[in-house]
């Protein structure tokens, strides 16, 4: 939390006494910060929440009691700045806890039921059953890549210990087995892991991720980009999406009430909307080609956001774009980011009947034509928190938007390149989803394959081994 970080800097580097204030709800987050940085900041607690409360209530907090100590808040504030530093507030050498370390590689032998319980109690799962990562299963999984088990795949940032944990091919393979993945899925899991991105980004809001796979790997491992692509009816979609969350929980230490404090959580996290793009039925170039990859390369592309809104079949006397305005009206438009997920019927209709030659043409049309009242735009907290500072610094167009009366219409999507388009669906109905997901990055799958994709293997011996 910035409050604690700023207090530490002022106290240690500028010699300024500080009185940091937090609501009592975050006492354990403050305690976590103390544990990892060692400095006994003199935090003062008020009742929860402060956000949204009127002035009279906040004044009541100041003259009222600190829930942690039952003493008057403002007295504690003054005292924090004037009471001389005591003996135990002198820290001296402090070694922050670290996740480095060697733990016993194998678990004690036990029955299937007891081990399933152990995996849940230790916080290694998402609450659902797993496949126990036995040595044989992990060995079979490792045959899915040509990389050595101890090769480092990527790093993930641990919020609580402020460290980068680097994980190996074997660590990803263990989580792959737990998710029920097969060897042929491992290259995709390694590509995801190489990004170091957690599937549950740290936030108190329901922040979530989406995963789109492009290129030949989609059909090689039988991913679903057609009917029911987003529903649990395909092995590769189910296990790859879930593996990313298990990777985040196990190696990203994203464990509820310990490292992440999402107030409501987001059910998207069970599968992270893991789908393949329906390149065969799409009239436009595949998503990864837009991002500079060759069509013959296989990639994973990661997105982050909060919501998606489904259309329920638009009316016949309006263009698809105008129908989408209804869904866009329910999204904040943060940094002009959105992701349109279109059934091939809709994509082909947009190209053949409404004349959008490329995905970017349609993104530009949305960017120019979708309007939202300025009051609603600034009414979303994240917009206010992240973009109001830009407006105050005079960055256009936000500075001028901030001055407009509440009901004036603005076009919030000022950067069409941030409006991503992915074609997914089985053509049983002209459906689409509009999400506030922003693109974060793509990663190659091919470099993690069992045999580099470019090798010809005439005698067919290089294929994947028999399934165990």
């Amino acid at each position, binding site marked *: 939390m910035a409050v604690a970080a700023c207090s530490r800097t002022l106290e240690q580097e500028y010699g300024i006494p500080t009185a940091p204030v937090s609501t009592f709800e975050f006492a354990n987050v403050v305690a976590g910060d103390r544990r990892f940085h060692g400095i006994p900041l003199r935090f003062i607690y008020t009742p929860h929440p402060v956000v949204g409360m009127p002035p009279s209530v906040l004044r009541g907090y100041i003259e009222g009691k600190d829930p942690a100590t039952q003493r008057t808040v403002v007295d504690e504030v003054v005292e924090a700045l004037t009471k001389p530093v005591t003996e135990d507030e002198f820290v001296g050498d402090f070694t922050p806890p670290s996740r480095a370390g060697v733990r016993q590689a194998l678990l004690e032998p036990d029955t299937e039921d007891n081990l399933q319980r152990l995996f849940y109690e230790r916080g290694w799962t998402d609450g*659902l059953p797993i496949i126990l990562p036995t040595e044989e299963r992990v060995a079979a999984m490792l045959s899915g890549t040509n990389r050595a088990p101890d090769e480092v795949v990527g790093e993930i940032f641990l919020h609580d210990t402020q460290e980068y944990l680097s994980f190996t091919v074997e660590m990803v393979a263990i989580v792959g087995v737990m998710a029920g993945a097969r060897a042929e899925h491992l290259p995709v899991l390694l590509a995801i892991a190489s990004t170091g991105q957690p599937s549950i980004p740290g936030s108190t809001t329901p922040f979530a991720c989406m995963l789109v796979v492009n290129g030949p790997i989609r059909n090689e491992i039988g991913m679903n980009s057609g009917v029911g692509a987003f529903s649990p009816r395909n092995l590769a979609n189910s296990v790859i999406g879930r593996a990313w969350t298990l990777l985040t929980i196990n190696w990203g230490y994203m464990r509820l009430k310990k490292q992440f404090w999402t107030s409501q959580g987001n059910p998207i996290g069970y599968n992270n909307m893991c789908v393949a793009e329906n390149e065969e039925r799409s009239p436009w170039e595949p998503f990864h080609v837009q991002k500079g990859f060759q069509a013959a390369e296989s990639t994973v592309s990661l997105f982050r956001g909060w*919501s998606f809104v489904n259309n*329920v079949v638009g009316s016949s006397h309006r263009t698809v774009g105008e129908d989408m305005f209804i869904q866009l009206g329910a999204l904040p438009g943060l940094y002009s980011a959105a992701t349109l997920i279109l059934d091939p019927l809709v994509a082909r209709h947009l190209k053949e009947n409404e004349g959008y030659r490329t995905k970017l043409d349609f993104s530009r049309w949305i960017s120019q034509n979708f309007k939202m009242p300025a009051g609603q735009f600034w009414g979303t907290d994240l917009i206010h928190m992240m973009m109001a500072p830009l407006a105050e610094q005079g960055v256009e167009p936000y500075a001028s938007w901030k001055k407009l009366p509440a009901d004036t219409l603005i076009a919030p999507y000022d950067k069409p390149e941030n409006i991503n388009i992915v074609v997914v669906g089985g053509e049983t109905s002209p459906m689409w989803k509009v999400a506030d997901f922003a693109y974060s990055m793509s990663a190659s799958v091919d470099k993690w394959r069992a045999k580099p994709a470019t090798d010809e293997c005439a005698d067919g011996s290089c294929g994947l081994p028999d399934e165990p």
Partner: protein
Amino acid sequence: MSREAGEIEQTYHIPTVAAAGSNVVSFGIGPNVAYNTGMPIRYVGVPFPFSGQPRSVLKGYIEGKDTVSGRPMMQAIVDALTAPLTTDERLSGPAPDAPAAEPRILVASSEDDLQRLFREKGWTDYNPVILPTQERVAAMLRGTHHKPDEIVKSAAGTFGSRRPFTVEKVATLAVMAGAKPEYLPIILALASRVPYQDSTTSIAQMIVVNGPIRTKIGMNSGLGALGPDNEANSVIGRAMTLIHKVIQGYQEGITGFASLSNPLRYDNLCIAENEESLPDGWLPLHVQMGYKPTDSVVTIFTGWNFINSTGWVEQHYAPQFLMRDYMSSLSGMSATLLMDPSVVDLLHGVQGFQTKAMLGDWLSQNVEKTAESYWGNSIVSSMLAPLGRQGLEPYASWLKLPDKAMIKPFANARNIRTVVVGGKTASVWFATDFMPDRGTLIDAWS
């Protein structure tokens, strides 16, 4: 449509042919006849999509091919009304070649083979299952006093086709989902509500649990309740997906045609309401529906969208304002708000909404959308426009309004519900268009 065709043929002996989109006609010819109607109505397949196509394209369809027989469309229609009946079309009474009963036990040489068999049969969500051995199913059955061979329901398939299933079948699926015996009553209550509604659109279900059972079995209604984390929430939510596939027989592409479908189907948004944090005047969902506070109730919602508030409540923009803005994107037929307790503190303590109903009334009066946008939603136009044409208000007058006229879609405030769930670390909420059923008493299945 098969039902109406059947009525015309059976009661009035008038030959009928049904025209269906090529996307769903296979269901009309196959599973619908075998398991529901028993009447092999003759179908022709119309290329899809047809709604929204210009007349020239429709003319092309009429002069083109019937997607079922591959013959010219109109020729197929004439033949359907004139070609003499086949022996199969004259059959009556019990259907021949009924499928043999499913064996009670399966044996395989290894766990991995069984996990693969369960996947290939479409019995799972393709995530790992706990293999339902007899010992595990027997232990699970101790979670209810109902007998293993008791039939829970017979009309369990889509459109009520007969798929009788026992308490033991539900216990088997509960083991597969990873459940503990104390979850069995809720899972039985869920199973008793099949068939769940399906559609070619991206429809989904939500499960809300109320009453003492929430704490008894350790459900999460606080921090991170929407998951993925808590065992009870995750497992019970997943069990519904297994019931949908195995008991109801929903298989995408055979008996289901959701074009993109909905990622919520992985866990069916299974949550418990945070009743402990409700301020006085704000009643738990099941008490609003008429149950006693001490009843344990599971309510199944059906809907399409769950829109996230994204960030905290902004000081200068009261929470109900942003809710109003986002709800104008919903169809207007129903709305359920999933609200963090910190937002409830603001709405109740600061904005003066003494009860959930008062919030519903305010939103009902303040959510507006253009008549064009209202009728642009095909579920609204399919279900309500015909009623408006027959004079039913307010739809009749809304039909006559010019496109840009503003209407208040949530005319009936009772269609706006609120469920409180969350851990107070952020004043966030979801606006959804989910519609509840009338709830099921879990105690009946304990």
